[in-house]
């Protein structure tokens, strides 16, 4: 230990700054400033770039996303429209003709409706909810926790509200795609004689229902993602997804609930009901369904309300 402390004092002034980077990197770094393109950001360009980013990620994770999306509805239709009718004959889910079955309970309006017919719109609606939440809530909770990666996107040259809107649109696109994937599966998988009666007469209305339902689930996803405590994510299934699905007229039409009056009114608070019933109305007109005005009012109104609340909490959490 000689001349102990003097090394601790760097030379004063400019000499204290390290010499320019090595000959190789120095000019390259300098060129980043001198030879930089001039960016002309517009809201549309930034929005489009953010959507392009979502689709790049979606494409990269395509196999995983597809598998996750398909397994639940595939197994569901397989068990309930193939296995059950085969092993049980008319027992339980056998379909229309037995008054005791779930399909039989639907016999309010059309006694010819089998369980597969009820499941097609129901499982598509369930898919919309799952995908909307998976695509928005889960990534958002990650982005807000730990490293707060949300700050990266928040620094893009657009208002925070646009960022929230982009999250909804991207989530809705994924939910929409999910529903389209489920459709052929629930259409094709069934035992002989158990084919669903799908008949679309109003294609534009089908698109409207699908789009508004997708936007509704994505808006709900945004709201949940901004209010959920990341440590309680597993509660999402128990408290939101499971009740929404089981009591969302996925496995039975709303009209059939008239046997249990209190439940028929209670489930009206569940947005899922209107998605299932909306798709039921346009895909399987043969089965009883809720009035279209009620369905559209809730789908559009719900999107606006959840979207507004979600964007508000989102902005509050991004800007602190």
């Amino acid at each position: 230990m000689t001349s102990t402390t003097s090394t601790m004092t760097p030379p004063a002034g400019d000499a204290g700054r390290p010499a320019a980077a090595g000959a190789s990197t120095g000019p390259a770094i300098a060129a980043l400033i001198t030879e930089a393109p001039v960016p002309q950001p517009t809201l549309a360009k930034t929005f489009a770039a953010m959507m392009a980013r979502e689709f790049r990620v979606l494409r990269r994770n395509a196999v995983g996303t597809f598998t996750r999306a398909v397994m639940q509805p595939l197994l569901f239709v397989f068990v309930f429209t193939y296995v059950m009718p085969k092993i049980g004959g008319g027992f339980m889910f056998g379909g229309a003709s037995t008054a005791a079955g779930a399909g039989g309970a639907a016999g309010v309006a059309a006694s010819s409706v089998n369980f597969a017919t009820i499941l097609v719109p129901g499982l598509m609606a369930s898919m919309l909810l799952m995908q909307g939440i998976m695509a928005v809530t889960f990534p958002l909770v990650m982005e807000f926790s730990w490293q707060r990666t949300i700050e990266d996107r928040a620094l893009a040259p657009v208002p925070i509200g646009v960022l929230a809107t982009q999250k909804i649109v991207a989530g809705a696109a994924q939910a929409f795609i999910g529903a389209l994937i489920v459709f052929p599966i629930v259409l094709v998988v069934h035992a002989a004689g158990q084919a669903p009666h799908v008949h679309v007469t109003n294609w534009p209305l089908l698109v409207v229902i699908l789009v508004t339902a997708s936007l509704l689930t994505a808006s709900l996803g945004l709201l949940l993602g901004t209010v959920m405590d990341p440590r309680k994510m597993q509660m999402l299934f128990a408290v939101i997804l499971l009740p929404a699905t089981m009591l969302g007229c996925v496995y039975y039409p709303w009209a059939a609930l008239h046997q249990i009056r209190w439940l028929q009114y209670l489930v009206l608070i569940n947005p899922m009901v209107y998605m299932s019933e909306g798709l039921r109305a346009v895909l399987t007109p043969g089965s009883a369904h809720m009035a279209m005005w009620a369905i559209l009012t809730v789908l559009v109104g719900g999107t606006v309300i959840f979207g507004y609340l979600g964007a508000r909490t989102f902005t509050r959490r991004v800007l602190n």
Partner: protein
Amino acid sequence: MTDSAMQPPAARATAGAGTAIRTEDLRKTYKTPRGDVPAVRGIDLNVPSGELFGLLGPNGAGKSTTIGMLTTLVLPTGGRAWVAGIDVVADPVGVKRRIGVVTQNNTLDMQLTVTENLEFRSRFFGLGTREATRRAHQLIDAFGLGDRRKAMATDLSGGQARRLLIARALVHRPEVLFLDEPTAGLDPQTRVNLWDILGVLHDQGQSILLTTHYMEEAEALCDRIAVVDHGEVLAAGTVDELKDGTGADTVITVRYEGEVPDGLAADTGLAGRPGVGKVETDHDRIRVFASEPDGVLGELVAAGARAGLTVRDAAQLKPSLETVFLNLTGREYRE
């Protein structure tokens, strides 16, 4: 966000050209269930374009909150701030277009590769696809990430991630670059390497504001420094101005061959001399804090000789930013 949002040109005119950052009594108080917590209590800054300005302060001093307000992600609760001449509250989008930000935490897009992180950021800032790709490659080469081009952002080392974060902040050639503790947690090589990069950027006229709690970093890099603690600027100026202005002492240390006997320190006659502060004895050495250090070393050597002790080594340490910093923040604690 009401009146002023209607008149961005007026806001722009206020700060004037050639100013990278200006704040007037900037404040942030967080409302918590336990009451109001003031994080920043009235900060005034004026950073001309092209300057490398440092906010130096301990953890929790309010540095990150200040950067947060300047980069539009934290809403001020009082005062005003302009970045590149634009009011941060009235026109946050205008500010975001003109700034590059390197946050303390790793905010890379973990779903994307190194190249994609840069490409998409470029596209967020309005570059076309082809332009974005070209810019990404330029940045990758300049930051020495060539062999990690296709790596996912999750697979980068700490140093690589930090380089990519800085590269990403530069995609749109920001007018002002913000770096929140850019070298925290990095190994010494990576750290010096980043200093080099910041030096080159600064030489090219890039306005930079960085926060740090490393004195040597502030001392090595910054044109000017503001020492911040408890949400207030305690002192601001060049490193030399800070050293001169805060009454920090030169420290003279003499180490003898053996244990310093009692009374030797008194024998020097230094204690109580004008221009001399504290005289400390520490095993085999005596340390003197003096604002007028002339002759102190001689006295220490002579006193040693009288006591039969030879001097092993001696050092005269000019006040460092560290002594300045501890002086300032220490004073604050005593109040």
